[in-house]
């Protein structure tokens, strides 16, 4: 290949005597080789070059002694000038043999012999050069193909690595993503190492991250997440930190020796997160909650570990955030039972699994049955009869308490009507109302409807509400209670003395009875302890001043009953006066 086309301008030696024949011959030669292969020159440049070669041919013809090297060189130079094909050689030999001597008017003794030898050497030089050139080009294209293939393979490997990274990392924080974490966690379980090995997982969730997003915008949220991710990565040392999505991160602590190993990591993570982050020029401080699981690898599975970590995270959240919580299997068991109960309750209510027992409220003056308190029971098909402390809290959490309370109220009214029909001495029925029921807008309407439906005298129904329902009740609740009292329904304050024992509402509210918490009555047992007795005496006196009756709860002994009677307490309720009983037993008391 010629790098510089100027090299084509072979210096034409002054060759007096050749005259116009030289140019004529060179033009014929140029025409003969044109098209045999691509010549990167103009026709004029080619003719000029071939004129130079022609002079060298002439010199070679006349040289004494005849030299082979001249012919070789001329053949080689033809190839170097890209006149490099079989046709190029054939036509060159033809045109030289046919026209050189004639066009240039050359003559001599042995010129024909010399011409034959010269053409032979030109052909040899040409063929060698062409062969070398072909081999060089073949080598060069093969090397290029090999290099290109290597590069393509390298690029493929790189792109596979890049693709793998993309598939296993979170684009925002560049932390490992859920997929990689899952893979690594599974690997812990697949690795050899016997049943001795333990592992720990910290499930980290930022506290109040939604607030950041909502108030500062998603961009700020993203910046904060990136900053937290960096802190966690540093805080967690060599342990794998992954972003599970949103503001959830997880730290995998492999080969723990004890729970403390994970607690240290969790403490470090909490400390790292609490360092201030700079977001859009503001300094932000956030905290995190962490659910921790640490246990032997044997006997568990990756999904169990993650479920436990998730549950524990919620414990950390619900116990106040900005802390870690450690998984506790017993607590988990309890919560599972609670959850099962809670979710079974609506259907149980539909199927009529709930029923009411009634506990007598007895006059301390004459032992007469004044009333009964309705107490709800759940006849659970597997767990047997459950008392309200097992499920009322759950019903309050889920909101089912409104429907359940409604059922209790209706059932109690129906039962009260039954007793009214049975005896003129029928007791009033006292029904506990949950806070939510008191606040529900339809309460007055509901009670009115029930009274009418069962033709129940309003004085046969008592509604027990807690102090807190009174304290935190909105004006609407107070209005409801007034309306109910105006109807003639009895309103009692339950568990009086355990809450705020606020006296001001006793003046303004339509309450007719105080039920004094059993804890005061309990104090009456200890002989010589007068404090509780004095408190009770004061309460009773106060209530009577306000024209309220007092019922003592939790009365278990005759001695307690005697002292309550002595104080002037109006009524009592408790084991001493009768356990909660099915309604048919109440029938027999009448």
């Amino acid at each position, binding site marked *: *290949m*010629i*790098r*510089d*086309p*100027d090299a084509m301008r072979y210096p034409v030696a002054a060759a007096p005597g050749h005259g116009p024949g030289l140019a004529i011959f060179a033009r014929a030669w140029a025409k003969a080789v044109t*098209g*045999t*292969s*691509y*010549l*990167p020159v*103009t*026709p*004029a440049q080619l003719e000029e070059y071939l004129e130079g070669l022609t002079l060298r041919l002439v010199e070679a013809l006349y040289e004494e002694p005849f030299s082979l090297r001249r012919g070789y060189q001329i053949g080689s130079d033809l190839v170097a000038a*890209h006149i*490099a*094909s079989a046709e190029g050689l054939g036509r060159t030999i033809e045109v030289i043999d046919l026209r050189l001597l004639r066009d240039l008017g050359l003559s001599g003794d042995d010129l024909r012999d010399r011409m034959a030898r010269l053409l032979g050497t030109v052909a040899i030089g040409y063929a060698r050069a062409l062969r070398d*050139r*072909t081999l060089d*080009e*073949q080598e*060069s*294209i093969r*090397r*290029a*193909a090999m*290099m*290109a*293939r290597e*590069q*393509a393979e390298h*690029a*493929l490997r790189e*792109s*596979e690595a*890049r*693709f793998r990274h993309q598939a296993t990392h979170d684009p925002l924080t560049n932390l490992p993503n859920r997929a990689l974490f899952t893979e690594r966690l599974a690997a812990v379980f697949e690795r050899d190492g016997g049943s001795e090995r333990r592992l720990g997982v910290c499930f980290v969730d930022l506290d109040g991250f939604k607030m950041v997003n909502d108030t500062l915008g998603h961009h700020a949220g993203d910046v904060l997440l990136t900053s937290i991710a960096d802190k966690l990565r540093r805080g967690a040392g060599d342990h794998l930190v992954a972003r599970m999505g949103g503001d959830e991160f997880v730290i995998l602590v492999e080969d723990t020796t004890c729970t403390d190993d994970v607690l240290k990591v969790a403490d470090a993570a909490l400390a790292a997160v609490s360092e201030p982050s700079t977001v859009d020029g503001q300094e932000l401080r956030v905290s995190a909650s962490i659910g921790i699981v640490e246990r032997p690898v044997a006997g568990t599975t990756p999904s169990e570990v993650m479920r436990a970590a998730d549950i524990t995270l919620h414990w950390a959240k619900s116990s106040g955030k900005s802390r870690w919580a450690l998984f506790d299997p017993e607590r988990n068991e309890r919560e599972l039972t609670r959850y099962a109960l809670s979710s079974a309750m609506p259907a149980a209510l539909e199927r009529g699994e709930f029923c009411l027992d009634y506990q007598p409220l007895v006059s301390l003056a004459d032992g007469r049955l004044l009333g009964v308190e309705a107490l709800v029971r759940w006849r659970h098909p597997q767990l047997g009869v459950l008392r309200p402390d097992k499920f009322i809290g759950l019903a309050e959490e889920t909101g089912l308490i409104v429907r359940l309370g409604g059922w209790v109220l209706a059932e109690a009214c129906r039962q009260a009507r039954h007793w009214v029909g049975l005896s003129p001495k029928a007791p009033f029925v006292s029904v506990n109302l949950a806070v939510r029921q008191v606040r529900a807008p339809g309460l007055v309407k509901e009670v009115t409807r029930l009274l009418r439906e069962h033709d129940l005298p309003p004085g046969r129904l008592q509604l027990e509400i807690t102090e807190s329902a009174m304290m935190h009740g909105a004006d609407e609740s107070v209005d409801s209670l007034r309306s109910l009292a105006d109807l003639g329904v009895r309103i009692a304050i339950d568990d009086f003395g355990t809450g705020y024992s606020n006296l001001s509402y006793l003046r303004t509210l339509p309450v007719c009875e105080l039920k004094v918490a059993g804890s005061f009555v309990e104090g009456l047992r200890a002989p010589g302890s007068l404090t509780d007795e004095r408190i009770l005496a004061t309460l009773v006196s106060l209530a009577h001043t306000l024209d309220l009756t007092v019922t003592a709860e939790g009365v278990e002994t005759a001695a307690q009953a005697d002292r309550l009677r002595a104080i002037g307490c109006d009524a009592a309720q408790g084991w001493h006066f009768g356990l909660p009983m099915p309604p048919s037993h109440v029938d027999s008391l009448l």
Partner: protein
Amino acid sequence: MRRPDWAPETIDIDRPSAARMYDYFLGGSHNFAVDREAAQAMIAAVPETPLIAQANRAFLRRTVRFLVDAGVRQFLDIGSGIPTVGNVHEIAQSVAPESTVAYVDIDPVAVGHSREILGGNERAVAIQADVRDPDRILDHPDVLKLIDFGQPVALMIVAVMHFVRDEDRPTEIVARLRSALAPGSYLALSQASGEGRTSTEWHEANAVYQRTDRQLHNRGRDEIARLFDGFVLVEPGVVWVPEWRPDSPHAVEEAERSVYIGGVGRLG
């Protein structure tokens, strides 16, 4: 379906390459047996194929000389192929050594070979890219290192567009490239036309290229002229390539059999 972005083009040297066949037509030996076999089939279909390729290569040489004489010192050669004899940088730098050249080709082997040829030449570079992705070419850091698009550029698209299907919108490709050029830039373009040859010849030629890595999409003179939209054609316009500013009068004999039609246009 297009190859996903992350998967690089694979090297398949068991398949004839249009670039290496072209090298064979020009008399080079930068080709493999599969290429030669396909090239010989092409020559059987159209016996003057080597002459046609040489005529097109001579068109490239004359346009580069013309552009250097017009003062252009930057060359963007898209579809440069196997750098056999008479490359753009050889021609341009022999006259104006400061000329810079960016070679672009889709064939990784051609690009690999170009890089080997260019070796220590700091004013020339070769990148692998597809003409159908002009943005990638225009934004390529290696190209930007040598080509200042604020100054006139000679955009060479010689013997390439017949490998671009109509669906890939060749006029839009050229228009996108044109939009990056400064006033005073030039477009030199040629492509195989559908004219001057029998339908049997075309049929057989297409059949040969079906076996290669590129298929042929011939365009008539009017369509080729439309690729110059936005440029002002210099004399003699869009013509059979041997007719474009020939070195000597006898070079234009039987120009209508040379398949390639091309020209040079000036911007602004």
